């Protein structure tokens, strides 16, 4: 494979501890190497430019059935933005729910090289893998959802951690999944009865188990297995005024549980899109930011990582396995609604949404997301996301960087809000003068999420031995700039390398890369009871047989298996 030497760039890398010093980065055989290890490298002149590791997105909805429902029922999302094939680039379309091809290219343009699909319904894992397979360049993995799964509800009702763990291991293998995702634990199952679970003690109908039992049990089962990532959580009561107490109650369920993982993570719970879970007040009229309370907890408990779920003030498409929430949303905005029930496993809903700067609540949501990041004491545990496309499309990450790095940019946006004074009263943001630097941004977008995923041995940094995922941006941190320069530079990488292959050269996409699909093969002791339960449930309830369920080889033409030994 070709050798490259990226010379004289301003390097920002939390793994090497380089904070903008000029350094050279060498690439050989797909990995970062010492500069002395390359013999005849192709020289990439990065003088006056910013060099970072490839970005790692810990939570985005980019592949699978609910993304495709979004595409199917929103043809207007593709209106006037389709582009024909050009050079090696294929035809692309879509804004908030782009085609798989555009998804891969647009992440690459932002310098991102690893993207995790945040919610895979196990029954539709094949569809999810087909879409990931068709997403070029990026390494990807998908999180199967467990929080409303009948097996899990039945095992955890009796606190059967070993059986839950054996089932998780089986399902990760069957679906080629990466991590344990929990969405509105118990609430989506309750939705099948037309109900919901509003707090961690609100019992699930029929199963007679509480969200708290599901959450704690899944954390314990995750640590029993020692999976690379922790349990990945979307708590109950998302998007409702006053929900921050539910969020804190959910956080507390992780207390006293120690991480058991050989993959270098320190957390036992990752809580996603926390912006949607940080609301005070008791109605939309008096909703207010509780980001201080939330971050007070996060900052003082190092067994938790979170991501933002930043509202970007765009027209977008919301989609989640939290079926009852999407019904609530369509009742609020009267726009079209799709709902699905996934047999024994989960459900989902999809609704378009317009986050308007002229609506007070949207502006408050915008402030809360930024507050979470700006109040973070440890940027290695607070990550940039938009819960794409729920709070906004991922292509806005460079705009979020601008807001996080520039108080001037935030003030411009606050001044543009129709209900500016009410928004300032309900939030903390106007009083925060912190401006993140590129090192902290690299922690929130690269090193931090890679560590939380248990992938610090591959991604998130520029140390020799790591994957050669490297981005070069037209940004000189030592020259004066206006806030928009940040957004422009980080939207359009000058060069990008993925596993040592040059993907972008002088802003042009020159390769579709060698995308890999990551999954976790956790080996456990033989568990005849769980295997009997699986067989029985397929016979009695599933509409497909076991033979038509498992995701087999050709769905993952380029798999990357992470082995975990949990036998005892």
């Amino acid at each position, binding site marked *: 494979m070709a050798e490259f030497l990226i010379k004289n760039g301003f390097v920002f890398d939390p793994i090497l501890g380089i904070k903008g010093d000029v350094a050279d980065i060498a690439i050989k055989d797909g990995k970062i190497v010492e500069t002395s290890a390359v013999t005849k490298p192709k020289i990439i002149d990065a003088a006056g430019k910013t060099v970072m590791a490839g970005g790692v997105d810990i939570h985005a909805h980019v592949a699978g059935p609910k993304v495709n429902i979004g595409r199917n*029922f*929103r*043809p*207007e*999302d593709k*209106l006037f933005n389709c582009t*024909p094939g050009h050079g090696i680039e294929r035809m692309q379309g879509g804004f908030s729910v782009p085609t798989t091809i555009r998804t891969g290219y647009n992440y690459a343009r932002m310098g991102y090289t690893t993207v995790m699909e945040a919610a895979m319904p196990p029954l539709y894992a094949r569809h999810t893998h087909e879409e990931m397979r068709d997403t070029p360049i990026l390494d990807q993995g998908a999180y199967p959802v467990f929080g409303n799964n009948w097996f899990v509800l039945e095992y955890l009702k009796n606190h059967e951690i070993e059986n839950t763990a054996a089932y998780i291991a089986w399902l990760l293998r069957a679906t080629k999944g990466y991590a344990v995702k929990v969405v509105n634990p118990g609430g989506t199952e309750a939705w099948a009865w037309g109900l919901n679970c509003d707090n961690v003690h609100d019992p699930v109908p029929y199963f007679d188990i509480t969200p708290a039992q599901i959450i704690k049990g899944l954390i314990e089962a995750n640590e029993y297995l020692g999976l690379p990532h922790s349990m990945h959580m979307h708590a109950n009561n998302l998007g409702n005024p006053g929900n921050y107490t539910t969020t804190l109650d959910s956080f507390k369920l992780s207390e006293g549980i120690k991480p058991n993982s050989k993959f270098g993570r320190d957390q036992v719970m990752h809580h996603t899109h926390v912006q949607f879970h940080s609301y005070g007040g008791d109605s939309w009229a008096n909703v207010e930011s509780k980001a201080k309370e939330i971050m007070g907890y996060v900052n003082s408990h190092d067994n938790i990582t979170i991501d933002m779920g930043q509202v970007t003030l765009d027209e977008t498409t919301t989609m989640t396995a939290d079926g009852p929430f999407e019904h609530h949303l369509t009742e609020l905005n*009267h*726009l*079209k609604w799709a709902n699905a029930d996934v047999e024994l496993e989960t459900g989902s809903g999809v609704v378009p949404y317009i986050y308007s700067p002229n609506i007070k609540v949207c502006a408050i949501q915008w402030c809360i997301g930024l507050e979470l990041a700006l109040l973070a004491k440890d940027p290695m545990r607070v990550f940039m996301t938009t819960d794409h496309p729920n709070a906004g499309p991922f292509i806005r990450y460079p705009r979020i960087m601008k807001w996080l790095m520039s108080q001037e940019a935030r003030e411009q946006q606050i001044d543009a809000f129709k209900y500016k004074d009410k928004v300032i009263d309900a939030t903390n943001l106007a009083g925060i003068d912190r401006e993140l630097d590129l090192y902290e941004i690299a922690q929130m977008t690269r090193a931090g999420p890679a560590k939380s995923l248990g992938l610090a041995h591959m991604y998130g940094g520029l140390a020799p031995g790591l994957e050669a995922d490297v981005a070069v941006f037209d940004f000189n941190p030592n020259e004066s700039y206006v806030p928009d320069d940040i957004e422009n530079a980080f939207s359009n990488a000058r060069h990008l390398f993925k596993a040592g292959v040059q993907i972008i050269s002088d802003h042009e996409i020159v390769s579709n890369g060698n995308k890999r699909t990551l999954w976790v093969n956790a080996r456990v002791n033989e568990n005849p009871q769980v295997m009997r339960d699986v067989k029985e449930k397929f016979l009695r309830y599933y509409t497909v047989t076991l033979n038509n369920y498992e995701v087999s080889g050709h769905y993952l033409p380029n798999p990357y298996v992470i082995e975990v030994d949990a036998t005892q």
Partner: protein
Amino acid sequence: METVTLTIKNQPGLFLEADSITPDAFAGKKAEEIVDLPVYVGRDEHRLGDFFEVSGRAGATPAETKIVVNGDLSRVKYIGMKMTGGEVVANGNADMYVGAWMQGGKITVNGNVDAFAGTGMKGGEILINGNAGNYLGAAYRGDWRGMAGGKIIVKGNAGSDLGTFMNGGEIIVGGDVDVHVATHAEGGKIVIKGNAKRRLGGQMVEGEIYVFGDIELMMPGFAYRKDVDIEVDGTKGLFALYEGDLGERHRKRKGQMIYGKLYQRIRA
């Protein structure tokens, strides 16, 4: 006002996507520049001059530009799309999307138009001297933001699904219409001087429909209120007023509940 005349000389093998036939694209250009404007057949890009003889010259601005298109245009899509001013006269039948997303100016078609004429229209006027196809003045597929302003006049008949998600503006059909009129409408005015079939005002929450002739079947969500004496597009008469769609949510304005209004003329 300067005039550009286009005469079709080669029919496309498939369909010609010609959203460049607008006063906005032509403004400030001479004939020899206009022939180089891009048009598409399938995925292939061509020149406008590959399909049309072009003569005359455009005005300095769209408002000062008139375009006359001659010949059989039944395989030409998007004539006058997104235009903001000036005038287009099509002497022949035209294909889909005539005047789609139009914002200003005037289009006259001396013939029939296929589906989606005036899709997402915001302003200006479209006069169709023949018949119109389906989805006249409707929203783009999937969108809930339909026709917002402007006026469409059809001398002949119109197809199904006219004024879907209409928010404003006016559609006047001289003849009959097919099923689905003003579905999901939140405003605007539709006048049907001939007969209508079924499903008028389904899920309509605001706006007006006037029918001079028969309605084959009234939606169950519409209730008779009273007879009213009114003048509609120059015709005075007694109309029966129905309100609906009662199955939908309805806004209040000044304490009054707002409904979609359907007026049917009562024959003397």
